[in-house]
């Protein structure tokens, strides 16, 4: 039996629970239970959007000896709950933004203690708002959801020329690309990206999802992209399916 937090193939959060149960009344067991409780608290704070408390509770968890990765996974679990509450109509756009802020506050405390790369294991997604369009709320929310759930996100920002997209896909080796477009006149910029990827022989390697106010299922076919994300949670599921394929 390994030390707490080292159960092979199981997340660190689950490992803490299991070890806590196994070691029963021993000191290690007591410590495991305290850590597990603390991680549950972290998850709850993210899910409840407790911006004011998250930093201090994350710090307390670190001080108690909890692995930074376990804390981040607990935060990520909170983010998934936020997504579910959004889907159920309990949370709204501003709540997703707030959840992103809660994550940022917590990550700021964690970052000096470990490399985020250990958490970013789900794959790489390149995101941007297309050329001619500078709306970024939707894109930023998708980026927050993806980052919070373990993706490596290459966010190119807004008004991004297709050449920069191609370059980012090449460099990052991403197999998933998200294009945000709010305005109908800018839809052509999506086609420009698709054409540029095809010209570079990259289209078969990367799957493309679009999102934004003017996007429709008809546009997915018309533009030759692979999926449409209507909200950040749907976008996250699409990218999860892209990187699994």
């Amino acid at each position: 039996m390994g030390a707490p937090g080292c159960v092979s193939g199981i997340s660190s959060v689950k490992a803490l629970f299991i070890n806590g149960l196994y070691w029963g009344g021993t000191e290690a067991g007591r410590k495991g239970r305290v850590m597990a409780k603390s991680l549950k608290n972290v998850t709850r704070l993210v899910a409840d959007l407790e911006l004011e408390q998250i930093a201090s509770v994350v710090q307390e968890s670190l001080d108690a000896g909890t692995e930074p990765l376990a804390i981040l996974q607990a935060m990520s679990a909170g983010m998934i709950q936020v997504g579910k509450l959004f889907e159920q109509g309990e949370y709204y756009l501003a709540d997703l933004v707030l959840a992103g802020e809660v994550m940022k506050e917590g990550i700021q405390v964690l970052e000096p203690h470990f490399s985020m790369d250990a958490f970013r294991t789900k794959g790489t997604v390149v995101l941007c708002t297309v050329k001619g369009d500078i709306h970024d709320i939707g894109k930023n929310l998708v980026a927050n959801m993806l980052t919070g759930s373990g993706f490596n996100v290459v966010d190119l920002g807004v008004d991004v020329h297709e050449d920069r997209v191609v370059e980012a896909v090449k460099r990052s080796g991403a197999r998933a690309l998200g294009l945000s477009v709010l305005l109908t006149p800018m839809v052509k910029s999506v086609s420009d990206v698709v054409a540029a990827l095809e010209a570079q022989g990259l289209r078969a390697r990367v799957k493309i999802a679009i999102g934004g106010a003017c996007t429709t299922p008809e546009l997915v076919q018309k533009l030759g992209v692979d999926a449409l994300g209507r909200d950040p949670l749907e976008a996250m599921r699409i990218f999860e399916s892209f990187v699994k394929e």
Partner: protein
Amino acid sequence: MGACHDRVLAALERREPDRVPTLDVLEEISNVYEILEKKPLPFGFLFSNPHTGRVVNRLAPLINRSHLFDREMDRFSHDRTRASVKMGYDSTWVMHVPIWRFRDTRTVVDIYGRRYDAGMDGKGNLATPMYREGLISCPQDWADWDKKDLFRLPERANRAFSRIQKDFGDQVFIFGAFLYGLFENSWQPMGFERFAVAVRREKAFIRRVIKFYEDHFCMMLEAWADAGLPGAVYTDDMAYRSGPMLNPRIMRELYSDAFHRITETAHALGMKIVVHSCGNVLPLLEWFAECGFDGVHALEPTAGVTLAAAKERVGDRMCLLGNMDITHILVDADRDEVFEAVRTSIQAAGHGGGYILAPTNSHQSMSVQRIRWMLEAVERYGAYPLTGGAGPAA
């Protein structure tokens, strides 16, 4: 007043007029001047040409002080109303927004505290500037913000709309409007991320900003009413594709009192008032009705809003306006598709009155020809009493 007024008023009061009325929302320079068969002033060239652009960059402060663009806005609002009349619309939503100040050919700020990117519309004209970020991030920024142009806005609107109403008021029902509503004015000058946090941490500050714009909007209503306008559009995007941007409970808490006062002021001045919001507003419709709005516009099909769902929720309390798709139907659809879209909209919302057919918004890719087909189709399918509706004309 002409038949168009009776038609629009009947629909706003949820009575059956002689025909389903129409509302023009077109705000694009290229489309307006295509309708008028005129050339717009060459501001687009001045901004995009590198030589003249350099001159504009140097003279920007002088241009702003001279209110050159404000005067151009007066002229454009007049021209776009003329275009509505020429197209044969029953009503028109005339946006008069002398709010932008050019820093140079690429950057614009507005009188509320937003920064935009200036750009071209692809047809040689200046496009509506695109919002980039807010400039007011804290209460001190707000206190320091120069508001003198805000206080001048009602006077300028009164002057512009007096002329518009005098020239076209008997030919088309005019809804006065300006940018922006209370929600947009409370979040955009600080950015949405900052706003989402401020709603939680600095509610008193947010309330102060809302109160300021509530008073300001009521002054605008006074100015429009004095100019003789019969209607107003309260334009404020409160929803996104997936639903309201802010929890409706918090929306109610923060904005209900202001909305009630705005609608009561409009009604006391003898005006009808319609709320416009893009996005999926279905969860907000009942609140809009409670606040006293006479109608609700946009009802975007691409955001999942159907006329049937809106009619069921608030059709007995508010007039529905809009729902004509601007991503395909009024951009590149064929004639049959346009006719079918009009027919289905009228069938879904027109029975018993309370529907004004209109595009959901305005952008430069919209086709004037498709708008003509839309208006033609309303003549075909919109006469009361409504029938089941035949297929489109050959």
